[in-house]
C-alpha cells in the first residue's frame, strides 16, 4: 500500500465531508474553466473579426463607438457623412478599397441590423485569409432591392433565398418601410458579427423614402463645414429602377445621400496612419484603426472584466481550499489515535505528514478534475444557447491553455492547506495517541 492508497482510504472513510469539500473545489474550477473559455471566445471574436480593414471612417465622435457600431453592429451610429466624402476617400490614390456602410435601420422585428452597402464588400477578405462564402443556391446581390443575409439571421428567421422582408426605419418598429427586399444570398457562417447582419444593396437603401437628407439640411451642413454647396441633380439625369412591388424608384441625388461609415483598405500599410491623420485634421470625420480600438477595449474593459472574474473564481477556489483545510484539520483530533497507530507500526513522522498532504492533494485534484468536466459540460450545453442569442460562436470542445495552470495551482494550494494538518500529524505524540 502506498501513501496515495492510504490517503484515499482516509478520504473514503469520511466520504460525506470529503465529497462536499471536493465538490466545492469542483464548482470553483468549473466556474474558472467557463470564464476562461468564454473570455477566450469573446477576445478572439473582438480581436479577429475585423482585421480585414485598416481604417474605419465615420463622423467625428467616439472612435470606439464608431468601431463597435460599424464592425460589431453594437451601439448607435454617431452621425452620417456626405456621400461626396465617401467618393473622396474612394478616389484617394492610396486607398485600395472603400466600402460604404449605411446603418441605423433594423429588420422588422428589431433583432438584426440592416447594413446598406455595395456588392464589393463580399469580395474582400473579412479576416486575413478568410473570404465570404455563400451557402448553396445563393450569391451576391445585384439589383437595388437584393439582400444578402448572415447565417444566423437565416437560421433564426427561417429565411432562405427568395424570402422577402421589410425594414424598420431607424430601428423604430412602428415605422416600417413599405419596400420589400429579397434575399439573394446567405453567407456561410463566419463566426463574426457578419453572421447577424442583413446586407441590402446601397442603391436600394437610397431609394427608400426617408433615407434622403433634406436639401436645406444639406446646404446648412455644407455651409457649416465650409464644403462646396451641393446642387440638386436634375431629375432627368437620375437612374430609375422598377422594384419587386412594380413601383418605379428613382435614384437619390448624390448630394442627398449619406453614409454612416466607410471601411478602408489601403494599398500600403504606411499610408494608413497618414490618411488617418489627414482625416482627423478635417472638420467632418475621424478615422479609427479598428485593431487599435479593439486592443484598447480588450485591455481596458474586457481585460479588466476577465481579470475580475478570474480573481473572483480564484478566490472561490481558495475558499474551497480553506474548506479542505477545515475538513482535514477538524478530523485531526479524531485521527490522532489513527496516526499514532501508524507511527507505532513504523511510519515515520514524514510519512504521516505526507499522507495528510496526499489526502489534501487528492481532494483538490479530484475536485479539480470533476470541475473540468462540469465546466466543459457547461460550455458544451451553453454553446448552442449562446450562439442563438448572440454573435458568439462557442466551440463546445474549446480548451484553453490557461486551464493547464489550474491543476498545478491546485496542487500548490492543496499542499499549502495541508501543511498545518500535516504538521499536526507530524507532531503527534505516539505514546499519548495510543493511550487515548
Amino acid at each position, binding site marked *: 500500500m502506498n501513501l496515495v492508497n492510504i490517503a484515499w482510504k482516509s478520504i473514503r472513510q469520511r466520504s460525506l465531508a470529503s465529497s462536499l469539500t471536493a465538490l466545492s473545489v469542483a464548482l470553483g474550477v468549473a466556474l474558472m474553466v467557463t470564464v476562461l473559455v468564454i473570455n477566450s471566445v469573446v477576445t478572439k471574436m473582438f480581436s479577429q473579426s475585423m482585421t480585414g480593414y485598416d481604417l474605419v471612417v465615420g463622423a467625428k465622435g467616439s472612435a470606439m463607438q464608431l468601431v463597435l457600431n460599424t464592425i460589431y453592429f453594437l451601439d448607435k451610429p454617431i452621425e452620417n457623412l456626405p456621400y461626396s466624402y465617401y467618393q473622396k476617400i474612394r478616389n484617394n490614390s492610396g486607398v485600395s478599397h472603400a466600402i460604404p456602410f449605411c446603418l441605423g435601420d433594423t429588420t422588422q422585428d428589431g433583432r438584426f441590423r440592416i447594413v446598406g452597402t455595395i456588392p464589393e464588400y463580399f469580395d474582400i477578405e473579412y479576416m486575413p485569409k478568410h473570404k465570404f462564402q455563400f451557402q448553396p443556391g445563393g450569391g451576391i446581390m445585384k439589383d437595388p432591392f437584393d439582400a444578402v443575409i448572415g447565417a444566423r439571421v437565416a437560421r433564426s428567421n427561417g429565411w432562405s433565398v427568395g424570402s422577402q422582408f421589410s425594414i424598420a426605419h431607424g430601428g423604430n418598429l412602428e415605422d416600417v418601410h413599405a419596400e420589400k427586399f429579397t434575399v439573394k444570398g446567405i453567407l456561410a457562417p463566419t463566426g463574426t458579427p457578419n453572421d447577424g447582419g442583413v446586407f441590402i444593396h446601397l442603391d436600394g437603401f437610397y431609394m427608400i423614402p426617408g433615407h434622403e437628407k433634406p436639401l436645406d439640411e444639406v446646404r446648412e451642413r455644407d455651409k457649416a463645414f465650409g464644403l462646396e454647396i451641393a446642387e440638386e441633380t436634375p431629375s432627368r439625369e437620375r437612374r430609375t429602377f422598377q422594384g419587386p412591388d412594380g413601383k418605379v424608384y428613382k435614384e437619390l441625388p448624390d448630394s442627398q445621400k449619406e453614409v454612416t461609415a466607410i471601411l478602408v483598405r489601403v494599398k500600403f500599410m504606411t499610408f494608413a496612419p497618414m490618411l488617418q491623420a489627414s482625416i482627423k485634421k478635417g472638420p467632418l470625420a475621424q478615422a479609427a484603426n479598428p485593431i487599435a480600438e479593439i486592443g484598447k477595449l480588450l485591455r481596458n474593459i474586457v481585460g479588466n472584466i476577465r481579470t475580475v472574474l478570474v480573481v473572483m473564481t480564484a478566490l472561490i477556489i481558495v475558499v474551497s481550499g480553506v474548506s479542505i483545510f477545515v475538513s482535514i484539520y477538524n478530523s485531526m483530533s479524531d485521527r490522532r489515535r489513527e496516526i499514532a497507530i501508524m507511527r507505532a507500526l*513504523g511510519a*515515520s513522522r514524514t510519512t504521516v505528514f505526507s499522507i495528510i498532504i496526499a489526502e489534501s492533494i487528492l481532494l483538490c485534484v479530484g475536485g479539480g478534475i470533476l470541475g473540468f468536466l462540469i465546466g466543459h459540460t457547461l460550455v458544451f450545453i451553453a454553446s448552442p444557447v449562446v450562439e442563438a442569442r448572440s454573435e458568439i460562436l462557442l466551440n463546445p470542445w474549446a480548451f484553453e491553455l490557461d486551464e493547464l495552470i489550474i491543476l498545478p495551482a491546485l496542487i500548490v494550494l492543496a499542499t499549502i492547506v495541508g501543511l498545518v494538518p500535516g504538521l499536526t500529524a507530524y507532531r503527534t505524540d505516539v505514546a499519548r495517541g495510543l493511550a487515548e
Partner: protein
Amino acid sequence: MSLVLKDIRKSYREPDGKRLPILNISHFELQAGEQAVLLGPSGGGKTTLLNVISGITAPDSGSVILDGTDIARFSENRRDRFRAQKIGFVFQTFNLLGAFTALENVLLGMSFSGRRVNRPHAVDLLTRVGLAHRLDHRPSAMSVGEQQRVAVARALANNPALLLADEPTANVDVTNQQTILTLIREACREHNVALLMVTHSMEVAGQFQRVDRLSDFNQPEGTP
C-alpha cells in the same frame, strides 16, 4: 534477537515542571526466541517500558540493545524504520484502522517497513489465524476476538524478531483469551520470535515459564 536493557531511565515532566520518574532499570535481558511475561500494576510503567523497547519513546538515558545494536542512539527516523522491520506490536485495544479491511491492515504494517509489500504472505498470515473468510471485512464488521487475531497477523507481517504484546487478552472474552494467547505463543515459537508480554492477569502469567515482576527490577525512585 536478544534484548538487553542497560541503565534505562525515563521520566515525564509534570504540569508543575517537576520530573516524574517512571523507569529506572539497571539491567533486563530477553534471549532470542524466549517468551516472558511482565507483571505489574496499572500505572507501574509497563507500557512506557514497551514504548522504550520499541523505540516509540527514547529513554532519558541508558541503552536498548537489540542484537548488539543500541537503538537508543538511533535517530527517531531510524528507530521508526527499525521498529517496522524488527518489532511486532499487539495492543490491548487491537488498534486496527477502521478505514482498512483486515487484509489492508496487515498490508499497512508491511508498507511502513520499506520492504516490498507481500500480499500472499499477508493472506497466509490471516489464513493461519483463521480469518481466510474475513480478508475484505473491516474491523467494525468483526468480533473483538477476530479483530485481535487480525492484530496478531499484522504484528507478524514483517517477520519480526521481537513481539511486544501489551495486555493482548484484556479486552477479549474468556473463550477468545486462550485462543489469542495460544496463537501468539505458537506463532512466536514457530518463527523463533522473542515475546515480551505485559499483563496483570495471573492466569495468563501462569502459562509462561518466565514471569518477571516489573517492580523487581524497576526502581524509579532510587537505585534498583
